[in-house]
């Protein structure tokens, strides 16, 4: 992966730039982008967890879909059909460049703590298949996390098209096919005249109301859909961004809903919730499902398929936010030149490698230090809090852009944009507030110490670090490249005008 100090988008020969060759060399179809987006957000991993709620899982996915999935998808479809470059460009155009940097930083930073937990899940799934005792071995877990992460970096460094291909395959093999199998088997179960294990009557449409715990459950589920906007950074890789991106978003939205709801329902029909609880884990729940049909051999197959889906999803997260960070780094000089270097495929390899070094360190701590692994859940609270800043900024920017640049060409316009944005804004703000309510894992600890940990983490990762990058930026770190900017900035607009 030799790196070169070349403008983003420039290819191996150094003679072509993003404006000319980039979109043609790395062009991806709208369907590939839809599958990438779906892969970033949805998989079967959550199905057994949600199956415990029975019919109420539909409510727990649909309400968040209305107030969060729909606004984020519609708004990012409008913004990406008018401006390339993803969340940085939208917020920079709508609010200011420093806030644009904050948005893309938050989107990037939250992924750093995500990879170790995702890959630890991959390690435990594989261990379940080959030898469950491995799952508790730190060395095994560390080797799996580090090897897979760096393989992911290697693949991501080959360019958007490679990532699109592999993540699409991961989604099809690891989510769509097994999801379909689960749903078909679920219907077979009901078709055989068996009563559903979970009651499917009107009394069970809603989850029980227990006050704060129910509110935490419902509002935290908004975040199930986080990441829908992330792949907008690849919009200039589409041949007709203005029309194809909205199409990709709507397809992804439908797929995400189907993947989340139907397999969870199918599992709840077959496996009683007490059994889901007692089997304590994603794979055991699938095991119980397949055991009913006497097809236990499908359990290891499904395990490997889930691994494929997880790795496909990881690739999209490696390729997306770091690309957005690169855009702002080059245009505004917010990151040192070392981090702006690209490889021959035009990929931000030094950002990926630096992120990899940090991830490796975190993975080692996670695998070998019991206190870190036991408390790792707290990072998922902090990083989701950080991510919500992106959404707050995105919705405000969208409203402002509609007001300040109403005539800017957009391939798609959201009807009643302000209403949609306010719904999304309130949902994001509610999720941010609920993030300060201690979950089960915090037990009987002091509320104040929880507020300090989460608030402190949010402040450091989401505000202090980007502020330091901003404060210590150097004018000569900018790498002005008109062709790169033109490539990023005009492809969508030109097409929208056409």
């Amino acid at each position: 992966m030799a790196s070169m100090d070349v403008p983003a988008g420039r290819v191996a020969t150094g003679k072509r730039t993003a404006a000319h060759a980039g979109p043609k060399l790395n062009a991806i179809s709208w369907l590939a982008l839809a599958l990438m987006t779906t892969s970033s957000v949805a998989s079967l991993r959550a199905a057994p967890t949600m199956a415990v709620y029975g019919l109420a899982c539909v409510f727990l996915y649909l309400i968040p879909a209305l107030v969060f999935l729909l606004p984020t998808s519609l708004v990012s479809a409008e913004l990406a059909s008018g401006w390339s470059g993803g969340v940085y460009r939208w917020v920079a155009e709508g609010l200011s460049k420093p806030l644009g940097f904050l948005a893309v930083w938050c989107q990037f930073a939250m992924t750093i703590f995500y990879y170790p937990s995702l890959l630890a899940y991959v390690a435990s799934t594989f261990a379940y298949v080959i030898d469950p005792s491995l799952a508790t071995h730190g060395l095994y877990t560390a080797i799996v996390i580090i090897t897979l992460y760096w393989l992911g970096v290697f693949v991501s460094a080959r360019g958007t098209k490679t990532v699109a291909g592999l993540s699409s395959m991961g989604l099809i093999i690891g989510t769509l096919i097994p999801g379909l199998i689960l749903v078909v088997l679920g219907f077979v179960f009901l078709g055989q005249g068996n009563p559903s294990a979970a009651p499917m009557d009107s009394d069970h449409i809603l989850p029980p109301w227990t006050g704060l715990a129910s509110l935490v459950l419902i509002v935290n589920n908004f975040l199930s859909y986080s990441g829908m906007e992330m792949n907008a950074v690849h919009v200039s890789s589409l041949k007709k961004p203005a029309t194809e991106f909205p199409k990709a978003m709507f397809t992804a939205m439908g797929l995400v809903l189907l993947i989340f709801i139907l397999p969870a329902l199918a599992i709840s029909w077959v496996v009683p919730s007490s059994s889901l609880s007692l089997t304590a884990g994603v794979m055991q729940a699938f095991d119980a499902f397949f055991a009913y049909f006497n097809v236990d051999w499908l359990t290891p197959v499904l395990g490997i398929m889930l691994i494929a889906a997880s790795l496909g999803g990881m690739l999209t997260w490696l390729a997306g936010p770091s690309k957005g960070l690169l855009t702002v780094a080059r245009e505004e000089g917010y990151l040192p030149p070392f981090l702006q270097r690209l490889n021959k495929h035009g990929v931000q390899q030094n950002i990926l490698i630096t992120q990899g070094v940090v991830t490796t360190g975190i993975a080692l701590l996670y695998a070998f230090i019991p206190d870190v692994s036991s408390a790792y859940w707290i990072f998922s609270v902090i990083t989701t809090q950080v991510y919500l800043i992106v959404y707050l900024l995105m919705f405000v920017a969208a409203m402002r852009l509609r007001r300040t640049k109403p005539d800017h060409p957009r391939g798609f316009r959201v009807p009643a944009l302000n209403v949609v944005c306010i719904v999304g804004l309130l949902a994001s703000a509610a999720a941010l507030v609920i993030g300060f309510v201690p979950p089960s894992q915090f037990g009987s600890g002091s509320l104040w110490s929880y507020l300090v940990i989460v608030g402190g983490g949010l402040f450091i990762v989401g505000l202090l670090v980007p502020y330091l990058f901003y404060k210590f930026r150097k004018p000569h770190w900018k790498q002005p490249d008109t062709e790169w900017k033109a490539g990023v900035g005009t492809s969508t607009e030109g097409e929208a005008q056409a």
Partner: protein
Amino acid sequence: MNTKAPHPKAHHAQGEDIDHAEHVDTGIMSRRWIYIGSAVLLVAILVTGIIAYSGVHKTNEANNKANELRSALAAAGLPQPDKDLIVRTLGTDGGAVCEDPGQALRNGADRVGLANGAAGPGQRPIIGSARIVEAERIVLQTYCPDKVDDFDDEISDLKFDDVVKQ
């Protein structure tokens, strides 16, 4: 003679096109190898997984344990899964449920997994249902009573609420 010399720019463009085409070919080849490599790797781990995976076998002991578990669940007021289902998932030794329940990595993974319905980076802890641990504790008591203390240590500081309708 009125022959036209090739325009330097046209020549340059032609060379550029050749470079461009070469790069496209290299890119396609490289991508093809990555796809092939990924497919081979996936098939290899799939075969390894199928060979290594040892499902539980139906034995008298497994049947007895399943009956014992059903009685214990009934006594605790919890629904009882089908006996064959229990036999197939827990066998005679409790399977993965009894695999070091108090160990730090398992503990960490369980705590990360006690979360909302997200499958991506939106995964975030919630206030879960006590049923999640009640039934697991009964499984441990039935299949691996020596692990119950470790499990109790692990869950002693968790708080729960009734967010699942009975």
